[in-house]
């Protein structure tokens, strides 16, 4: 059997086409960009070798540091929300509401498939204050909480919160479905056995289910981290980085630098930084989950 599974011709046949496409469309462009990150200016206009200066310059660029901070805050909140709520939802599908599972599971996925433009517009309408109160503000006004009526997207203190809520709400169904797929794979007898031993509720979840779900939990965390570190479209659709620069993320700044300021080299350097950041987080997460598994 070892021989059969070590068949080199089969490995090549199975892996090479995918590897070729992947290298061609993802990996080579990345290396290409990494090379660009050593230049200053814009190819086609003025482009000169700059060594590692772009990577040094970052740390004295207030815009870079500002958007980096915004991104970090956003990532921490959204990752916790997406993975946490996703997990809770999946528990609900399996244990809480057996009867309606199919319906709920179908519906929870709806926001995932809506285009970002639509979701952004929806949320800005929900929290709208002018020219008309949106759903949230009208609701607050109706139940007498007028003092809480505020321009949610118009002030730095709340804009990021709305953005986080939106992205948690959009993606939690995705994580719920992933968790759900893993949950139903857990053999019923393990759970029954635990139940007979008297485990239920929180204890059952933390002692039996979570350890069994460790690989998928890691997957979810890595998805969520890498997805949120790159956040671009949702912030653009909801706030365009405003008010001021309070929701301006690293990816948005990268886009601006590359295509608006004509500092393509600098933009590439930021992109490489984002990539390294993702890589670092993944390695750390991997280590963490592996060590806990022992």
């Amino acid at each position, binding site marked *: 059997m070892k021989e059969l599974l070590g068949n080199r011709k089969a490995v090549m046949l199975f892996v090479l086409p995918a590897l070729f496409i992947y290298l061609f469309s993802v990996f080579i462009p990345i290396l290409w960009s990494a090379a660009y990150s050593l230049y200053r200016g*814009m190819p086609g206009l003025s482009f000169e070798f700059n060594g590692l200066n772009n990577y040094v310059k970052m740390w004295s660029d207030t815009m870079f540091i500002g958007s980096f901070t915004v991104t970090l805050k956003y990532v921490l909140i959204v990752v916790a929300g997406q993975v946490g709520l996703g997990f809770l939802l999946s528990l609900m599908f399996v244990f809480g509401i057996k009867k309606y599972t199919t319906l709920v599971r179908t519906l929870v996925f709806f926001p995932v498939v809506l285009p970002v433009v639509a979701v952004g517009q929806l949320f800005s309408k929900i*929290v709208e204050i002018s020219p008309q109160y949106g759903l949230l503000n009208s609701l607050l006004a109706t139940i007498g909480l007028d003092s809480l009526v505020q321009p949610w*997207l*118009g002030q730095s203190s709340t804009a990021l919160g709305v953005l986080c809520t939106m992205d948690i709400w959009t993606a939690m169904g995705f994580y719920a479905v992933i968790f759900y797929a893993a949950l139903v794979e857990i053999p019923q007898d393990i759970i029954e056995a635990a139940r007979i031993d008297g485990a239920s509720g929180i204890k059952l979840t933390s002692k039996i289910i979570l350890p069994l779900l460790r690989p998928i939990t890691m997957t979810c965390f890595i998805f969520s981290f890498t997805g949120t570190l790159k956040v671009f479209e949702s912030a653009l659709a909801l706030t365009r980085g405003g*008010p*001021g620069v309070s929701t301006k993320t690293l990816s948005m700044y990268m886009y601006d630098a590359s295509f608006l300021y*004509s500092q*393509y080299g600098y933009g590439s350097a930021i992109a490489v930084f984002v990539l390294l950041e993702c890589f670092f987080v993944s390695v750390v997460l991997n280590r963490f989950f592996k060590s806990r598994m022992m």
Partner: protein
Amino acid sequence: MRAFKGMKVLGFVILVCCLHVNLFAGGQADENTIQFLSIWAEDKDNSKLLLELTEEYKKENPDFNLEFELVAAENLRQKVKVLVASDSVPDVFVYEAGKPIVELIDGGILLDMEKTFTDLGLMDTLDPGAVSLLKRLADNRGLYDLPLGMNVEGIWYNKKMFADLGLDVPETWSELMDVCEVLHQNGIQPFTAGGKDKWPITRVINMYVMRRMGVDAMERGSKGEISFTDPGFVEAGHVIQDMVRKGYFGEGIVTVDMSSAADALFSGQAAMFYNGSWFTQDLNDTERNLLGPDGVGFFNIPVVEGGVGKLDDYSVNCGNILVLSAKAYDEELTGEWLKYVFSRFGDYAMETTGTFKGFKVSNMPDNVPTYTRIVGEELAKVNNAGLWFEASMDDKTTQVAQNFAQSLFNLEMTPEQYFEEIEKSSKEYREKN
């Protein structure tokens, strides 16, 4: 088993698709084709005009072909930068005036339009006012672009509201403030603005700057002749913040986008709206403009007492502009097309859409919509032209000015801090170049 069968079927379907639809469809354009990159759909605005004229041209030159490409206005810069970096700019494309085009001029990308139009004998078709505006926007490097619009900006207001409250059109800033106060007392939000889109509110700041410091204040600031931290600029910030505090912009103005702001005016939720004359296309839309074909009036920015600006100083702009690739230009192909299309462009635009394009109009049609007529009258009154707030700024300073305008309008930043940021960024750019 079933999945495997399903996969086979899917594979077969795709194979058939591949054979049926040539996945390599496309290929290279032939030599009689010029490419045109635009931000308006084929049946809208300038694209419509240019494509219709091209159709006429094609009747006499059946071999000629124009390949149209649409890109969203907000992605125009990215698209063009990718094309520039890959040395494949289209023959003709729409771009932005000011620093964006200066950069392309300096990179040797763009065709010298003054020379080209002189060679083709087309120089006379251009409106001299537009030409000097474009040259000024290109930082006096010459004429490298063609105007696609000629707009005045000012305040559009709900005529009925003004009449009901017995309000006259204000001519001075303090009269304007009185008008605002009366409206506000009567439960009407005086101003609306597209604060979410950022640029519309820097224009509101510019209203005051232009009147207090004169039409060239921003340009002098960008050149470093005066500092953006001068009292006149800061005063503008204070005036605006006062208006915000008094509720003249309603609540959360930085969350309102341009469309909603226009709708607020149309539905009577706000009385005034600072906007350019491109707004006429929304005003002429009878389904959207609930105030009707005569319900909205226009007045120029009131003068500031003790300020430099006068009532015949207008804030003007040409919107997006048209440029040609220097490398791809071919006198026989592109030149002949230019000659046909642009000798008729000004008249054709006025005749079919009632808009001014920065080209001379020789035949003024008799019955134009009210709003178009208003714009024509105002354009005729322009004595000194002022540019918009960011026109003379580099790209980064533009972003600084626009982003933090929101912070100024939601009172999270003081006027001093705001202009400090602009000065800092502007100075950094001057020192680098």
